[in-house]
């Protein structure tokens, strides 16, 4: 029996899943009537009780986040949806928004109602123009249908929803940088405290949630806490989207209960590409320390991945087989972080600049083993020293690849260059096409 639990992705195979009609045919917009019939606090309690945790990476309980918003403070509150999905490997929010934008809008309405916000924002990555257009249309349709705007469903609740397309910076996925960018400033992380719950967008109490977190809300309201808790593990409840990419037969999004293992997902995906074995993989995108074949049975929930020395992150499972040079992979990731470092703080700005140059040399087989210790020392001087978590993510692939594949780094040096044929790892190569 399939381990999949399609909720958000249930209707993705329907041609009109993204339309208002399609969404409603599948039971959409039923949850808001129910939620608006509840008190705001009841909605928060329901989400708290469900155990829903943030799907953007950190796994913070969503209901708790909502409850931090001060009540009765006579200030405007804001709900901001972080749809700035840009981590290498992460590809869950973009397909979700393309196939089912209304589930996010419905979640936004419920979430905004719960935190007493009358204005919500979706900050979407600007490069995905097709998704921006689809969201624009969905929001317009929702306004026309009376789900947004004044007096929603005649329940006396008003909500404006604004879509904002970012200009393309990874750092804007960091929630305070996102808020700065949304306010029209250059996206760089803000000093905390104050936290967004106290002084977020325009210095007002603000909740910033990931797309998938908010999109999971309507189903919880509609089907109940108990239904949600039938899925997942003890501390990681519910279903989630796992994004499988790389050297597998059928890459894509797999919606399954938290706690599923890579071995199980690989089975669902038809396994590795023919004739190849798993070498290493990321459990949650490039910012999470890599795993190897020894972690195939690690439960992919917040606790399980953490106990094994990585992070669940965005559940972006990038799969690499034995044709892949781990040094090259680390270099590619490092180049990404160097390009995306915002420049605000020294260790990230200068450290990523340096790391790339070191990895370039290592890939070219230059230097001695002492270089590896220097590399680790630089990582130690970057991790935990920076202003935000970007730099921690930047060193994760380096530290973890060195942990599991130190000998491969050394092999580059003894070999006087990369021992791998880079073409072999490509999907268009004859070897890969087998």
């Amino acid at each position, binding site marked *: 029996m399939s381990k999949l639990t399609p909720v958000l992705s249930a209707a993705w195979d329907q041609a009109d899943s993204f339309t208002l009609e399609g969404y409603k045919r599948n039971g959409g917009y039923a949850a808001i009537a129910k939620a608006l019939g509840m008190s705001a606090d009841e909605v928060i309690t329901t989400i708290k009780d469900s155990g829903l945790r943030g799907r953007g990476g950190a796994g913070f309980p969503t209901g708790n986040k909502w409850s931090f918003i001060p009540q009765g403070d006579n200030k405007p509150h804001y709900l901001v949806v972080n749809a700035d999905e840009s981590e290498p490997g992460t590809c869950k929010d973009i397909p979700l928004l393309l196939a089912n934008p209304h589930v996010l809008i419905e979640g936004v309405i419920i979430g905004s109602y719960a935190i007493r916000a009358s204005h919500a924002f979706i900050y979407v990555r600007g490069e995905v123009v097709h998704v921006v257009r689809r969201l624009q249309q969905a929001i317009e349709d929702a306004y026309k249908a009376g789900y947004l705007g004044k007096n929603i469903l005649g329940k006396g609740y008003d909500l404006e929803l604004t879509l904002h397309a970012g200009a393309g910076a990874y*750092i804007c996925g960091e929630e305070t940088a996102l808020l700065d960018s949304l306010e029209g400033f250059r996206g760089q992380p803000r000093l905390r405290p104050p936290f967004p719950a106290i002084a977020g967008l325009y210095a007002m109490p603000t909740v910033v949630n990931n797309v998938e977190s908010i999109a999971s809300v309507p189903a919880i309201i509609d089907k109940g806490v108990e239904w949600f808790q039938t899925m997942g593990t003890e501390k990681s409840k519910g279903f989630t989207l796992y994004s499988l990419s790389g050297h597998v037969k059928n890459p894509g999004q797999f919606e399954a209960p938290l706690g599923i293992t890579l071995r199980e997902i690989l089975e669902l995906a038809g396994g590795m590409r023919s004739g190849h074995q798993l070498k290493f993989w990321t459990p949650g995108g490039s910012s999470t320390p890599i795993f190897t074949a020894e972690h195939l049975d690690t439960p992919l929930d917040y606790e399980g991945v953490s106990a094994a020395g990585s992070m669940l992150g965005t559940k972006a499972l990038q799969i690499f087989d034995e044709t892949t040079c781990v040094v090259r992979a680390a270099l590619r990731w490092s180049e990404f972080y160097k390009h995306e*470092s*915002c*420049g*605000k703080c*020294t260790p990230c700005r200068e450290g990523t600049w340096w790391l790339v140059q*070191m990895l370039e040399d290592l890939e070219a087989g230059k230097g001695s083993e002492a270089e590896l210790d*220097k590399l680790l020392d630089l990582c130690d*001087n970057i991790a935990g020293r920076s202003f935000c978590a970007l730099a921690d993510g930047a060193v994760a692939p380096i530290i973890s690849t060195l942990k599991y594949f130190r000998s491969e780094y050394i092999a580059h040096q003894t070999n006087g260059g990369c021992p791998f044929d880079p073409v072999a790892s490509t999907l268009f190569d004859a070897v890969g096409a087998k």
Partner: protein
Amino acid sequence: MTPEQAVTAVETVTATIDGIEVQVPKGTLIIRAAEKLGIQIPRFCDHPLLAPAGACRQCLVDVEVNGRAFPKPQASCTMPVENGMVVKTQLTSETAEKAQAGIMEFLLINHPLDCPVCDKGGECPLQNQAMTAGRAETRFEGEKRTFEKPINISSQVLLDRERCVLCARCTRFSEEIAGDPFITLNERGALQQVGIYEKEPFESYYSGNTVQICPVGALTGASYRFRARPFDLVSVNSACEHCASGCDMRTDMRRGKTLRRLAGDDANVNQEWNCDKGRWAFKYLTSRERVKTPMVRGADGELHEASWPEALAAAAAGLKNKNVGVLVGGRATVEDAYAYSKFARVALGTNDIDFRARPHTEEESEFLTAIAPKLSANYLDIDAADSVVLLGFEPEEESPIVFLRIYHQVRKRGLLVISDAPLTSRGSKKLKAKLVANTSSISGLTNKSVIIVGERAAETAGLLSQAVALSKSSGAKLAWIPRRAGEPGAIQAGALGTLLPGGRPVADSSARVDVATAWGVGTLTSNKGRSTSEILTGLSDRTLDAVLLGGVDPLDISSAALSQMLHSFVVSLEISHSAVTAIADVVLPVAAVVEKAGSFLDWTGKARTFDKAVEDAQSRSDLRILSMLADELGTPIGLDSVAATAREITSLGKWDGADATFTQVAAKPAPTDVTLVSWRLLLDLGTLQSGETNLAGTAHKAAAHISAAHASKIGVSDGDSVKISSDLGSLTLPVIIDQIADNLVWVPRNSEGSQVIANLGFTSGSVTVAKA
């Protein structure tokens, strides 16, 4: 500390830093608490007067609260001390030490090691801290990021992006302190850089502060670049001679020459800032136009160099037993002004003395005699004010540090600012000032309000009277802030026809007896002295025979002033050749401010004393020359030195007798015909800014501001030129359409292309405006 803070007990917290207990006010940052113990945590982005940034990460320390240690080292510049906090700095924590060393290493990988040619070398926080927190040899073997070497971000500030450590001090200063966010950080990652909008260069009046607080040599001043090494300079505490804000200053000299000037620290005045004029306008000191020797006009009508005895004798011969007027100018030190005051009374036997080289009125004379000497408002009153009223006063242009103080409160707590200006100036815009047409529309003032009148209040009949009345009725504190640095001191020194030293009214016989006794003279003349304009009239109608002038530019007074002196005997005490020395009979060279000791009183009455910066200066201060001249006249004033003069002023003390009378003057109806209004911009054609081309490059361009209705009436639009004419002349300027009354036209008073006294003959009055 504001008055409220003084009365409410400060809540304190206790923490342990490197094993030493420290008690600090709640909210104190760890880095600051450590300083209190003498523990210096290295830092770059941190600045006590700027909001915390946490950007450079150099100040990482280990922190433990309630027995729970933070898993990562924390930036001590962003975290406030909490009760029971245990902090371990680089002195006691290996983690902190390694973290700091790691950051230092990162900061240096992209930093060009061009210290040997860098202006900052020798006084560079990066250099210094690299020695304490860095490693001797780099482990970086890669390629450094390079940029084009310095680019001008204004005519006076150069940016060397390679050296920049991206601490954002400069950008934060510009936004938070000056309110001029003309520079920002652009790009990202290691390519992040300070930048300007190409059409809006860094033309802030306060831009020099960014050079001073830059912790590396990334920002340098065009005038100082490559001129000196800091270790060759001798620093002298000084006072700024450019305005009455009263900044503490540091003057850096090399072999008797001023190389640069920096803002000094005075928390209650300028904090650690100054304006670009104070910082960068000092070339006049070494100008080729300096008068170096005494000069006497010979029978050939030309000035000839003369010996001191010869010149003094010539001056004495022209002044002895003559009716002489004394024009002090607004730039004298307190001691020099006192010497002029005493010289007029004792050596010349007259009260015909005035320090005002600017438009003035009888109403103002009375205000300066009866009200000004007793005013007590200061900077802390602005900090605590519930509203600030500006009358005839543009703080950013006329007293820039007062502006910073007000702006800080506007930014911090939305302080209400009310101004009677005819249009919203750039400064008013930053202060979000509420403009009022006249004082009758000001209400709601309390005893926590501050009313500031500028020297231009004298140009509107009745305005000073209204300010006094408004202060009386509301209890609001009153302040008078003139532009020139010497004016508050000149009042205290009695360099005015109606005032004797210490605020003593000439009209009061016991005040005269006081002073006569102290001076050891029989009696002092009791007649009311002439004002500047009356002295000039006296010279032209020959009721006065001679005039003795300090640093006075006749075009600051009126277009006729110079010609009014032509037939009189003129003695000029000057530092540089000027319009006055060109007609003077005797020219006596005096010391510039760095060449003498002395003091200036700021607008709050606070004295800032300074020593001679140039040790071997040959020039003498005004008071010494006046003393010699008095000897020559046979009526000694006995002011041999600055110290002796200061002692005499102190021993004379302040007047505690009856107040002089101040007669309320009625306001005149506002003019209805087309009228010119003007004020001076901070950077303009002022004498003390001459020769400073880099500075002048950031002066605001002159333009005529008129209303849209006015513009359409005369058929001009933004950018067109208009000709403004009076009976005496005209000037032509580009026009800017602004929110201003339809019958008013505003122009800068003394800027390039707009010198209103010279061009039009007045500072405000009826004009015609037409398309040029």
